[in-house]
């Protein structure tokens, strides 16, 4: 039905959709977890926050798991090279995530305050660390990752974990942390009431401003650094491997796609619109619109980064021609085609029952509700 080149492009979009889905869905419960020690002044407050996402965090986390699976299936080169190269960064994310299922499930099983406080910090780490590391990882994509491929396509990573934590990447970490924090804050503003809601609204204002400053700052840095450009590549509609192309580095090259196709500037513009919408709507008491605004910011920030990098996925600073791109890091035609059908069939089904689950559990979570259902809730 589609030719190979179109399929490669569609899969670039689909992985993007999964990452955006992750940011919007898992992003809001990670945002709530990040804000847990900041906004939750007592145990009941914290239980209100936790129970606002309790029925959904597990389903939302599957966006992350499926993202990993989809990258494996669609871009096996990326799955293999990125996760083994940035070994400790990924393990840090995994170890932090370990705290979430047990944190949610075990926290309120015992009344002991020390027990609960320990799991609260676990939930904070399980939310804030991944949110930060994802941005740091994206930042390093812009700088290039030091890996090479040998002629059997085995990848070798020559950097260190600490080199990932450079100032620009950390700035990108601030972007992702404030983005997911904003997502959590707008969600809390919508699902809570009273003083906790007031604190959540304040957090929305602060985080929206931090997000826009950090996002703008990252844009200025990207303008000044070297980007990557494909100089020559065989027919992108054919069967190729990453070593068959030539790549050069050029200052400002990450803005190339925007210069070629100025309509793309609307994508980063939506980030500003979304964040400002969240900020203004929450002040007007339109909390659902604030959540939509924040979700728009998630969408456009991720899409901005993707479009800037396109067609690069994982540029290599150590061996530029080994850079992984949407044209040469993909699966075979058969796999991309089969997986496209799987995605087309199941994604709407997933969205349907997820919406139903939110519909069933809709409404505000209150302090009275927690007190009345002490044993049944997290």
């Amino acid at each position, binding site marked *: 039905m589609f030719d190979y080149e179109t399929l490669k492009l569609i899969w670039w979009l689909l992985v993007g959709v999964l990452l955006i889905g992750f940011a919007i869905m898992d992003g809001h419960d990670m945002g709530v977890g990040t804000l847990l020690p900041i906004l939750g002044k007592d145990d009941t407050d914290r239980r209100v926050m936790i129970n606002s996402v*309790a*029925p*959904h*965090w*597990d*389903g939302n*986390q*599957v966006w992350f*798991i*499926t993202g*990993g*699976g*989809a990258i*494996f*299936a*669609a871009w*096996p*080169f990326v*799955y*293999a*090279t990125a*996760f*083994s190269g940035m*070994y*400790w960064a*990924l393990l840090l994310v*995994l*170890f932090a*995530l*370990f705290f979430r*299922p*047990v944190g*949610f*499930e*075990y926290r309120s*099983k015992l009344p002991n305050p020390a027990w609960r406080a320990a799991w609260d910090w676990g939930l904070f780490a399980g939310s804030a660390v991944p949110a930060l590391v994802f941005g740091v990882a994206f930042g390093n994509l812009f700088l290039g990752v030091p890996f090479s491929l040998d*002629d059997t*396509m*085995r*990848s*070798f990573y020559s950097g260190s974990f600490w080199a990932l934590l450079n100032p620009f990447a950390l700035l990108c970490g601030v972007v992702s942390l404030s983005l997911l924090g904003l997502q959590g804050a707008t969600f809390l503003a919508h699902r809570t009431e009273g003083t906790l809601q007031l604190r959540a609204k304040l957090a929305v204002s602060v985080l929206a401003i931090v997000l826009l400053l950090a996002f703008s700052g990252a844009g200025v840095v990207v303008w000044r650094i070297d980007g990557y450009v494909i100089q020559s590549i065989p027919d992108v509609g054919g*069967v190729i*491997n990453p070593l068959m192309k030539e790549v050069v580095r050029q200052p400002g090259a990450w803005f190339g796609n925007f210069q070629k196709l100025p309509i793309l500037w609307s994508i980063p513009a939506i980030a500003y619109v979304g964040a400002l919408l969240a900020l203004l709507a929450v002040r007007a008491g339109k909390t659902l619109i604030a959540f939509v605004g924040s979700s728009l910011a998630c969408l456009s920030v991720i899409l901005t980064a993707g479009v800037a990098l396109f067609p690069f996925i994982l540029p290599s600073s150590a061996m530029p021609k080994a850079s992984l791109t949407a044209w040469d890091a993909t*699966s*075979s035609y*058969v*796999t991309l085609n*089969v*997986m496209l059908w*799987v995605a087309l069939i*199941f994604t709407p089904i*997933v969205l349907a*029952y*997820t919406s139903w*689950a939110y519909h*069933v*559990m809709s409404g505000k979570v209150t302090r009275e509700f927690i007190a009345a259902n002490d*044993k*049944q*809730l997290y």
Partner: protein
Amino acid sequence: MIDSAVVDLSRIQFAATALYHFIFVPLTLGLSWLLVAMESVHVLTGKEIYRDMTRFWGKLFGINFALGVTTGITMEFQFGTNWAYYSHYVGDIFGAPLAIEGLMAFFLESTMVGLFFFGWQRLSKPGHLLVTTLMALGANLSAALILIANGWMQDPVGSAFNPITMRMELTDFWALIFSHAAQAKFVHTVSAGYVTGSLFVLGISSWYLLKGSNIEFARRSFRIAAAFGLAGALSVIVLGDESGYAVSESQKSKLATIEAMWETEPAPAGFNLIASINEEQQSNNWAIRIPYALGLIATRSTTETLPGIREIRAENEARIKSGIEAVIALEAVRKEPQNAELMARFRSLEKDLGYGLLLKAYTEDVRQATPEMIRKAAHASVPPVSTLFWSFRLMVGLGLAMLALFALAFWSSARNNFQQKPWLLKWALFFIPAPWIACEAGWWVAEFGRQPWTVFGILPTHLSTSSLSVADLYGSLFGFVGFYTLLLVVEMYLMFKYARLGPAVLQPNKH
């Protein structure tokens, strides 16, 4: 060359994380259907006690489920972090069922689990039952897709090597999905989960009955678990046999190893019940045998012979020699992918490519392989016998003992006299760990029995790892084992605490 310490540590880490994960998975698989059964009775009869049973066993389900999710996160990413070359070499095929698992099964299970716990007051009775059923369905579908992925590692169907991308690629999606190895493994594995869930409920209910607490609650739970467990135990054994039949088709080395069958015997071969194994001499010092049994089970015929370990090693030595030519032909065709003659030569040798790669454990350049290296590689092409032989017998022995337990429990619950049989109740209580031991032993048979391959006949284990350092691996291995152990201790503490509290934890002084 790849540091063999990196390979060994990567294997230990994978085994540790997979075995830990599989402490929690079987209980989820089985208990979820038991919850469906209990809640169905509640919806059909309107009896409150069955709803309380669903909620109480559901609480224990939740305590277990949390660690299943925790340890499961690792599994989705560990192929990339620690088995990067494997991920590159077979990701085109292996990644697909993993991604489908997320989209089709894990989303369903995880979304419904939230509604299962928090939707009691917001859903109608049938609505909540539907949620519970979809949760169980999601969990079991998850297992199906993971075992399709694993089945392909055991019997790599529907795929071909692509010299340009230097990897295996999918050629037939439906062959992958409906692989005989995968189907047999799936039903065998989920049945093992049903047995685990049933014995968990049966054992804890027996404990209440022995103590004389929660009698009405425990009696009903005991009955449901006995019936479901008997069906599960029968299925696990019948489908285990099917799995063995599938293995005899695809992996003769695994079959010969778990049977400690050194020599090819005239058909039908005898079955070694127990044996004293001598790996050095490639023979058994002595064995207690059942004549004809193995041949009949494994080939379902009286005339088909099964090759012994010595014969398999000799065959593999020939394939390794031919594999050297395949590796050389591959290198040539990769330099000139358009050369039809070179491609034709590679295709004619391709089936032994994996065997040629076995030599990479001994030499970087297979042209330099000495006869000694070839002999060593052929010897290592069959895994060490003793641990497989005994772990298989441990699994089967426990399986049969559990079948006996469930048969007696079912018989007694039909005659309604199990409360008068403290020996049966004690048996059920002290047998709670049995299904876990059998499951882990089964994992060992399946995965260690496939060595020295990650993908049987295609990709050797020692080529499959990431380019990491020994220090990286020590760090992550201790991190995983330490973290998981800590969480397991917490989980066991809560599990014991809530099992002791019993259904009273829902509403005091009720049953």
